Structures are given as structure tokens and as C-alpha cells.
């Protein structure tokens, strides 16, 4: 009850301040258009944003406090704000470097790049380097159990908390270096997710365009088939197929991972199919498609030369999103134990293995960081991919700010 009451009072105070803010603005600037035509909602928004910012600032100060109870309460917020500032600076520096190094065309690219995109590009680059050179960068092997090392899940390598400076992110329950496993995880999870998404787009995209161009029975058969596949909950379907595949893989001697890529690709291609078909149907009615048909062009030329270039924008947007979903599906399957198999390092499995430590968040936030490291790696890449895709969309659609 008091909570509701407090909320109402807070809102009333914000509303009053907003009204006063607008009035002051009108009075102070001699009725300048921006204050004169400001609606109350906008004024309210400004004040609300200010309140939130002030609260964030206070919380950040509190997270640095020497009182551990207070500091713990705002620990994660502090980490997030630090991360935000650090990444912003890194992205800005990266863009600065890009603007002065490289060929004329890449410099021009960096000049028009927004900060979010340069952040995305930077993160993707870092991930790519980590994934490709994992073997050279990681100090230990992904399945290397270090003898005589106590399990130590607290990152930071602080000996006072039982850490060891040799393992900056700690070691897991059976004595494997977490940092090495994170780096190898990039290779396994990202590589597989990328391959799967590409495959899903190839299958879904080409069939979708085919359905759009040919229409009639082909369209009916393909679309109804996709409807059937989509009617089954995708995760459960994937689980079911993975269980079957695990039998086959040992019999046929094909790694389970190959089956996983195929299964997720097929299930995900249904969404791509629908998009490609819808986009394709809008394009096939254009006169230039009719002109190409009347010229006697074949199906391959129609789909890949006439339609595909005009469908890249929505497909790219979908690619960013779909990549993240595939990524999460793989993590989920691994979490459930049928995805990437141990001892291969994988972020989903790593979250599962240390998920119990989340419970420590209240009194020992650093201990709870362990599962969040892998989860954060997933989240960071997801955000980065979407930033880059947004920017590419913006460029390809030719929209101006």
C-alpha cells in the first residue's frame, strides 16, 4: 500500500517539476518555439530522464562505498556503468583509429559510422580474432584439468579471496581455467552458430524466393510443409531430433555437432522461408521481373540476380536477429545437455555448470559473476551484431537522419 502511495507521490512531484520546467523555459527564453510548442508529455519525459540519471549517479557512487553491504547492493549496477563507459571509450578510440588508418574507402566508412556501429564492429572483430586464434591465445587447453589447483570460482585472482593470479578469471569445479574455456567457447559456439545461421538462410531464402516466383502448387507444398514444421514447438522439436541424432551419430560415425547444425538450420529456416517468401512476393510483381521473365530468363537468374539484391535489407535485419536466436538455441540445447558435448567448452554449458552461484549474488556478488561471464559474452555479441545490422540496414535503405 505504501509502495503505491509512494509511487503516486513521486509521479506527482515529477509532473509538478515538469510543469514548472516548461514554464521556466518559456519565461527564461522569451517564449522560444522549442518551449512554447513543448507538450506536457515531453516535459515530463525530460524530468523523468533527469531523475533516472541522478539515481544512476548516486547508485554508482554507492557501489564504490567502503561499506560492503551498500557496495554489494549496487555492485552489478557499478559493473554495468563501468562497462558502458569503458566500451564507449573503446568504441570511440577504435573509430578514431579507423578514421586515420587504412585505405581511403575504409577511412570514409569510419567517418560516417555511428558510435554504436563502431562498438559492434570492434566487438565482432575481437570475437573473431579470439575464435580464430583460440589455440594460440588461450593459456591452457579447454579440457585441460590443472592438477593441484583448488576450485576457485571468484574472478580477479585476488589471493586474499583464495584466488591465484595465474588464473585471472578463476578455475571451475574440476580445475579448468575459466578464461581459456571462455576463449575456446567463442570458437565453438560462435563458429557453429554462424555456420548454422548461414545454412538456415541458404535453405529458407532460396526456397522462399522459389515459392514466391513459381507460386501455385510449389508454393502450396512448400508453405504447408513449413506450417507443419512451425506448428511443433521448436525447442522441443530440436530436443527430440537431437535425441534421435545422438543414436545415429555413434552408428554412422558423424559428430553430433554436424547433426545439431543441420537440425537447428532446418528448424530456423522455416522463419527465413516465410520472410523471404513475403518479401519475394512484393518484388515479383515489379515490372523489371516481368521484363526478365519475358526475356526468357531462367529461375536461377531471377532469384539470385533480380530478386535477392532487392531483398537484402530485410534479410540482413533478420540475419542479425536469427543469428542471436540460433546462438541462444545452441546455448539452450547445451544447457539441457544435448548440444555441444563436453569436454568442448561452450558458453551455454558453462552457464549451466555454474548456474548455482547466482544465489550468492546477495552477499558475495563477485562469486555470482562466474555464470554471468559466459552469459555476458553471449549478450555482448548479440548486442554487437544487432548494432552492426542496424547500421547496415540504415545504409542500405538510404534513410537519412
Amino acid at each position: 500500500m505504501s509502495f503505491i502511495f509512494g509511487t503516486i507521490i513521486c509521479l506527482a512531484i515529477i509532473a509538478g517539476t515538469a510543469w514548472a520546467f516548461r514554464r521556466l523555459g518559456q519565461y527564461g527564453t522569451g517564449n522560444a518555439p522549442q518551449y512554447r510548442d513543448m507538450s506536457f508529455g515531453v516535459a515530463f519525459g525530460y524530468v523523468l530522464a533527469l531523475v533516472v540519471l541522478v539515481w544512476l549517479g548516486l547508485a554508482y557512487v554507492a557501489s564504490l562505498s567502503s561499506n560492503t553491504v551498500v557496495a554489494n547492493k549496487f555492485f552489478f549496477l557499478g559493473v554495468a556503468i563501468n562497462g558502458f563507459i569503458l566500451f564507449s571509450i573503446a568504441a570511440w578510440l577504435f573509430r578514431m583509429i579507423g578514421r586515420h588508418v587504412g585505405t581511403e574507402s575504409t577511412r570514409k566508412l569510419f567517418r560516417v559510422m555511428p558510435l554504436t556501429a563502431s562498438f559492434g564492429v570492434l566487438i565482432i572483430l575481437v570475437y573473431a580474432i579470439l575464435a580464430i586464434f583460440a589455440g594460440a591465445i588461450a593459456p591452457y587447453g579447454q579440457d585441460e584439468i590443472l592438477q593441484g589447483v583448488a576450485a576457485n570460482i571468484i574472478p580477479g585472482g585476488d589471493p586474499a579471496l583464495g584466488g591465484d593470479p595465474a588464473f585471472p578469471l578463476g578455475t571451475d569445479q574440476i580445475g579448468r581455467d575459466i578464461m581459456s574455456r571462455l576463449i575456446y567457447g567463442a570458437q565453438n559456439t560462435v563458429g557453429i552458430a554462424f555456420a548454422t545461421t548461414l545454412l538456415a538462410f541458404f535453405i529458407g531464402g532460396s526456397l522462399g524466393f522459389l515459392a514466391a516466383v513459381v507460386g501455385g502448387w510449389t508454393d502450396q507444398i512448400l508453405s504447408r510443409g513449413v506450417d507443419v514444421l512451425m506448428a511443433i514447438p521448436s525447442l522441443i522439436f530440436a530436443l527430440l531430433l537431437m535425441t534421435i541424432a545422438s543414436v545415429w551419430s555413434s552408428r554412422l560415425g558423424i559428430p553430433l555437432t554436424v547433426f545439431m547444425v543441420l537440425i537447428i538450420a532446418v528448424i530456423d529456416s522455416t522463419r527465413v522461408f516465410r520472410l523471404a517468401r513475403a518479401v519475394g512476393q512484393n518484388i515479383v510483381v515489379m515490372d523489371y521481373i516481368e521484363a526478365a521473365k519475358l526475356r526468357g530468363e531462367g529461375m536461377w537468374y531471377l532469384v539470385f540476380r533480380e530478386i535477392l539484391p532487392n531483398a537484402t535489407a530485410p534479410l540482413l535485419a533478420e540475419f542479425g536477429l536469427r543469428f542471436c536466436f540460433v546462438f541462444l538455441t545452441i546455448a539452450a540445447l547445451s544447457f539441457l545437455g544435448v548440444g555441444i558435448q563436453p569436454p568442448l567448452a561452450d558458453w551455454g554449458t558453462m552457464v549451466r555448470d555454474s548456474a548455482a552461484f547466482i544465489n550468492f549474488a546477495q552477499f558475495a556478488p563477485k562469486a555470482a559473476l562466474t555464470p554471468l561471464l559466459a552469459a555476458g559474452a553471449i549478450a555482448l555479441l548479440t548486442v554487437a551484431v544487432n548494432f552492426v545490422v542496424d547500421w547496415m540496414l540504415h545504409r542500405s535503405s538510404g534513410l537519412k537522419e
Partner: protein
Amino acid sequence: MTDTLLEICGLWLEGQSEEKWKPIINGVDLTLKKGEVLGLIGESGAGKSTLGLAAMGFCRDGVRISHGSVEFDGIDLLTASAAVKRGLLGKRIAYVAQSAAASFNPAHRIIDQHVEGPTQHRVMSRTESEADGMALYAKLRLPNPDQIGFRYPHQVSGGQLQRAMTAMAMACRPDLIIFDEPTTALDVTTQIEVLASIRDIVKDFNTAAIYITHDLAVVAQMSDKIKVLLKGDEVETADTRTMLSAPTQEYTKSLWAVRSFERPLKSPVVVGSIPSVSVQNIDAAYGKSKVLFDVSFDMHEGRTVAVVGESGSGKSTVARCITGLLQTTAGQISFGGEVMPANYRKRTKDQLRQVQMIYQMADTALNPRMSIGEIIARPVQFYLGLTGKAKRARVDALLDQIELEPSEYYNRLPSELSGGQKQRIGIARALAAEPKFIICDEVTSALDQLVAEGILRLLAKLQDDLKLSYMFITHDLATVRAIADEVVVMKDGRVVEAGPKKEMFTPPHHPYTDLLLSSVPEMDPDWLTNLLQERGVDNIGDAAVCKM
């Protein structure tokens, strides 16, 4: 208190392109008295629409007013607060957009959109406004005025929708209406109905209007004054009659002269010669509804056959049958005496090559992701098997033929060209196949008069050089007069009249041909009034109803 309603002084507008501000309108002045109609003409890109919107104190995204003033009835619209403008727009100033079909919300009934203005501005209650809307529909001579408002926009025709939009603009009885090309997308016969009803209602309510168009004949009927714009500069302003009889500027004279283009008559076709394309007694249907009935005509080498008729008359369907996109249900089509398979998929590459098509909307006819070079090179490679240097040389030759500089245009994308240039690329793509026969489907109807004339002259020159035969689909009889050798008039899927141009333009006519011919606006400012009287209606606008 003077009777000046709108006064624009030294208005400069700038538009943003590639992060630079470039001028669009350079210091235009404009005064409009109450009840006066001003015609604003110029080719596309002249800034007509931008100026029209600026008269409402509004700028599109990426456009800004750099200086000048817009004063409406003593209120400065550029500095007025949002609240003041809200009170004016829709209530005292209204806007009629070019494409009513795109401007109505397809999810709401027409009357629901009509009453929005009056109820929002508290001019009338909903019931009053509905009744008033029906009265306006009746005044604008919409069929079933009591019921038409309760339909959705897709359930009425384009011309009716355009009138419904005019009614909507009238809903609050504004002092000023801005008409942005309200009849450009309509047929001549429909255009008359809309023109007459607009003129009628503007006069009845003593509304001032700015009428934006690129059609001089239309503006001559509608306006008291004419202002000519060229690339954002005012060329001249004068009273309609003065302007038409004695234009002072070179540019205005050139605009007036466009309609004079006409090709010399050709000798009649030798009897017994084999036509390059012959349409023989074809019937066609979309699903179960039959759209073509026993259509036959011949097209000979080096000649142009114009197929005219209003929309829905089946002229484009004939083209679809000739190309093989739509299979005929009876009859046949032969090229040079040889019968063609009805389905384009069954035709050989060489048969496909002989028929090429140029489309009405150059925007959708060119793949926006391919460069001009690629677009033209494809048929060259596909049909003639040229590659490498030979292909490039052929494309360059084609670009020369359509009067575009090859080195400059080869790598451009369609979006970097103007409408007329895009249409030229369409022509080049058709020529690249080295056809004998080209179907031109309303190729000039989306273009300004000057540009359209350029295209017509180019087509005429190409025909003389390459002995092409054209099938020219159009609803614009001025175009027919300019380019055709023979004319086929169609109505409701039947050929109503056919013959050489000379015969077609001299009486006696089939009554439908007569209606079409008399509906073409003429430069004479009294033309509409005279025509309406001639058609036996004393009041303006009633003529529209006396359809066949």
C-alpha cells in the same frame, strides 16, 4: 482590412542532400485574394509541391525554410505556435494530395475520415458532419451520395476517391485549399468530372485555392492567375488569359509549344503486305470474367498503332496477350505471318526477342540494385551472346542512341537518374534485344510535358532509323496526335473504332471516340465551360454524369 488571404514574401527553402543544404525555392513571392484560384505550374523538381506545402507553413523532412514569411490572414505561419497552427490546418487551410488512393487510410471508411476534421475542430457534431459530407458528395456528383461514404477506400474508383478527398478538404469550409496535382493520375474522361466538380465547389463556397499541376490545359480551366516555376525560380506570373495569349518569357513559350509536336503523315500501307504483328480475333479472360471480346488489328513495319481508351478498357490486356503473359482463350497472334504460341514460356528465345516492352512506371521497370550498364548489357549478352569488349561497345552504342553520355551513365544506379532518363534506359533495354516490335505502355503518362515530348521525339527518330513498329498504349490523345499512324479505340474489351489517324481525328466519329476526343483539355480557358454547355448541361459538372 484588405481581402488578401495569403501572402508569401521572398520565401527561400533549402533541402538537404548528402549532408549539405541546397536551395530549392529561391525567393518566391505570392499573393492570393479571397476566392481566387492560382495555378502553379512547372516541371517536376521545380518546387511546386514544396511551395504548396510551405503555403501551409509546413515542410517535409529534410527541407527547411531559410528565410521569408508566409502570412495567412494576418497570421505569420512560420512563427505561429503549434497550437495556433493546429487550429488553422484542416479548418481554414486544407490540402488535397495527388494520389487519393495512397492518402486515404485503407483501414477506415471514407465518412469516418471525413468527419475527423470537423469533429476535431469542433465545427460540427459527428451526425451533422456526416449529413454535410453526404451533401458535399452529392454536390461533387458522386454516385449514391448517401451510401458511398460508408465504403472503404478500395471499394470506390480512383476518380471517385479524388472527389471524396476534395469533399473532405471542404468539410470545414476552409478559406484556402491546396490541390497538389489532383487529376494527374486520372483518365481524360474521369478528369473532366473531377475538374468540373472542383471548379464548381470552389466557386460556390468562394474558396481560394492553389492548384498545382504540370498540365497547362488543366490549369487554364481552373485558375484566375498562373505562376510558372522553373528550378525554384519564379519565371512569370500573370492573369490566365494574358499568360495564355502572350507569354513573355522564353521558358513559358517553350512550355506552350510542346503540344505542337506532330509527325508527318506516312503513305498508307501497301495492300497485301504482311503485318509485323497481327492480332486476330482474340478473346481473353482473368479467371472467369471475360475482358477481351474478338479484338483484331494489324501493326506494320515502321508504323505506330496507338491503342486508346480509358482505364479498364482492355488496352493493357491486349499487350499482355501479345507478350504471352496472359493466354488468349480464342484467336491467335502472329508475328510476320508466323503464329506464336499463346504462352510466353513456350516461345523460343528468338520469338521472345522480337517483342519488347517499355513500361509506364520507369521506377518499377528497372531493377534498383543494378547499374544502368548491367541493365542494358543483360539482353545484349542474353540474346546476342556478346561478352567482354563487344558487349561494352554495344551498350555504349545504345546509350548514344538514347542520347545519354555512356561514360557518365554506365555505372549509375536507376535512383540517380531523373524520370525521363529512366524512361530512356527502358527504351535502351528494349532496343538492346534488336526487336522488330515494341509495346509502349503509357510510356509518357508519368512524365512532364517537356520530358515527354523528348521521349516521343526519340521514339519517332528510332522508328525511322530502325524500321521498328510500335504499339502505343495511351489515354492521352495529344500523344496519339503526336506519334500515331493508326489509331485503335477500345472500350470495355472491344475495338470500337480503328483506322488511320487522319480519319480518326476528322468526324464523323463513333460516339465513344467523340467523348474521348472532346474530353481532352484544351488551352482555351473557356473550353470547359463551353464543353459542358455543348454537352447539354447548363450547370458546371453535370456533363460528367452523362456517361455513355
